[in-house]
């Protein structure tokens, strides 16, 4: 960075004010060169000035920077000195006709107010109720500094895609499992209701209430019968079911005979009865 004095918009005293450069990482890079300090004489090449403006996160950040450069404690701010530096900086930026964010101007006004108060003899306790602007500024600087630090801490925390990577493995061949929908029994009834309504409308089909247990027994008898093998008629009955069970089985058998689904054979009168499914 060139150290020209020509074109400087501010007095040379600002060079002293900026003091000895503190050891730190580059503020920014201009044309590839690291820029560590504000230039001693505040003449800043136009392109560099734009970079400086971007290097700060606002007036509080700039103020913190100036305070740190002076090795000042926040609680111990030398308001006059900091205000002068800040104004010099703002002046430089303005002289270059850069758009200056409003926040920087507000801060300039605040600093000017604080400085003027310091110069005036203190009014005895009359505006004691007023918030002291200096205390307020310190409070804000403290507050901001905390979160500036917190932001750096967050940046240092290990995070995905930089320090951690999710471990994942390829999938093997997966069985295509189609989960079964859940059905409520009432849904079936509703469905049947719909069918029956339509059946009434479109056909002469008449569906009566069925004796379900007989129907079911018909199914179960059919399921044990084969067409290539006879079983005894008695084996269709389960005496343990009691009289009602036997009757149901009997009715089911008769129904199956009537529907020609099974074949009943008796070789001789009063001989054993055999049953088999009708051949397919």
């Amino acid at each position, binding site marked *: 960075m060139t150290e020209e004095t020509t074109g400087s918009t501010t007095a040379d005293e600002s060079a002293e004010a900026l003091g000895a450069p503190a050891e730190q990482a580059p503020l920014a890079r201009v044309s590839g060169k690291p820029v560590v300090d504000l230039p001693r004489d505040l003449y800043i090449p136009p392109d560099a000035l734009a970079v400086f403006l971007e290097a700060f996160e606002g007036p509080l950040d700039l103020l913190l920077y100036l305070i740190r450069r002076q090795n000042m404690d926040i609680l111990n701010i030398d308001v006059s000195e900091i205000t002068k530096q800040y104004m010099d900086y703002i002046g430089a930026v303005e002289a270059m006709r850069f758009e200056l964010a409003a926040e920087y101007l507000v801060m300039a006004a605040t600093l000017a107010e604080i400085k003027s108060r310091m110069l005036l003899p203190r009014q005895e306790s009359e505006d004691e109720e007023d918030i002291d602007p200096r205390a307020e500024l310190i409070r804000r600087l403290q507050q901001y500094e905390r979160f500036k630090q917190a932001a750096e801490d967050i940046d240092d925390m290990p995070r995905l895609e930089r320090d951690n990577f999710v471990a994942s*493995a390829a999938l*093997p061949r997966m069985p295509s*499992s189609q989960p079964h*929908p859940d059905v409520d029994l009432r849904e079936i009834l509703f469905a049947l209701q719909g069918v029956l309504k339509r059946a009434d409308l479109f056909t002469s*089909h008449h569906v009566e209430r069925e004796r*379900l247990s007989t129907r079911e027994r018909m199914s179960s008898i059919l399921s044990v019968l084969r067409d290539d093998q006879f079983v005894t008629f008695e084996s269709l009955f389960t005496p343990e079911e009691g009289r009602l069970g036997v009757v149901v089985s009997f009715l089911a058998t008769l129904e199956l005979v009537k529907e020609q*689904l099974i074949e009943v054979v008796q070789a001789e009168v009063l001989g054993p009865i055999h049953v088999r499914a009708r051949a397919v």
Partner: protein
Amino acid sequence: MNEENLRKIQAITEAALLAAGKPLSVDQLRDLFEEGERPARQVMEHVLLLLEQSCQGRGFELKKIASGYRLQVREEFAPWVGRLFEEKPQRYSRALLETLALIAYRQPITRSEIEDIRGVTVSSNIVRTLLEREWVRVVGHRDVPGRPAMYATTRQFLDYFNLEGLDQMPPLSEIRDLEEIGREIEKNMQAEIEFESPARSTGGNGEDSNPDNAPEQTLH
């Protein structure tokens, strides 16, 4: 190459294969190391062998495929892992439910009998779905031309609906009551909708500003 060094290369190889999400070749793996520490091809292959062995008994294994190596979930665990990706089951169609209802109440019944009552054809899909779910089965064949299959419900069907027998199915006479219940439900829903709409408009972001609802990870 000492053992400690090998172990480190093995861990890095495993780490890289798990992070890559795609197969890596021996050379791609070697390229992860800076020139000075880059293992020779044979060393890398040896490390891959060690890695393969170290995965025994674990949930994943090393697989060699055309484009290189990859770590893969063991196939034997697919039934469990697959549940991660299960989609929400869809609902059965009305046609399927009607078919099921007719089989349940009119069994044994043939497909054409079902079609007669429903007035429309029954798609093979529906029958297959019901058979696959093991809710119905073929119990015989009707002794008519074509010998069509007769369908009946199964024990699994009864189990699913918590029935001991078909006689525990609600009688058809309940359908009348059901109609009323249905109308009532509809009326209730209607009322709910009417109740909800005006409240919505004023409620705005009511629940959002509920402090109990705010940051889910409050400090503890």
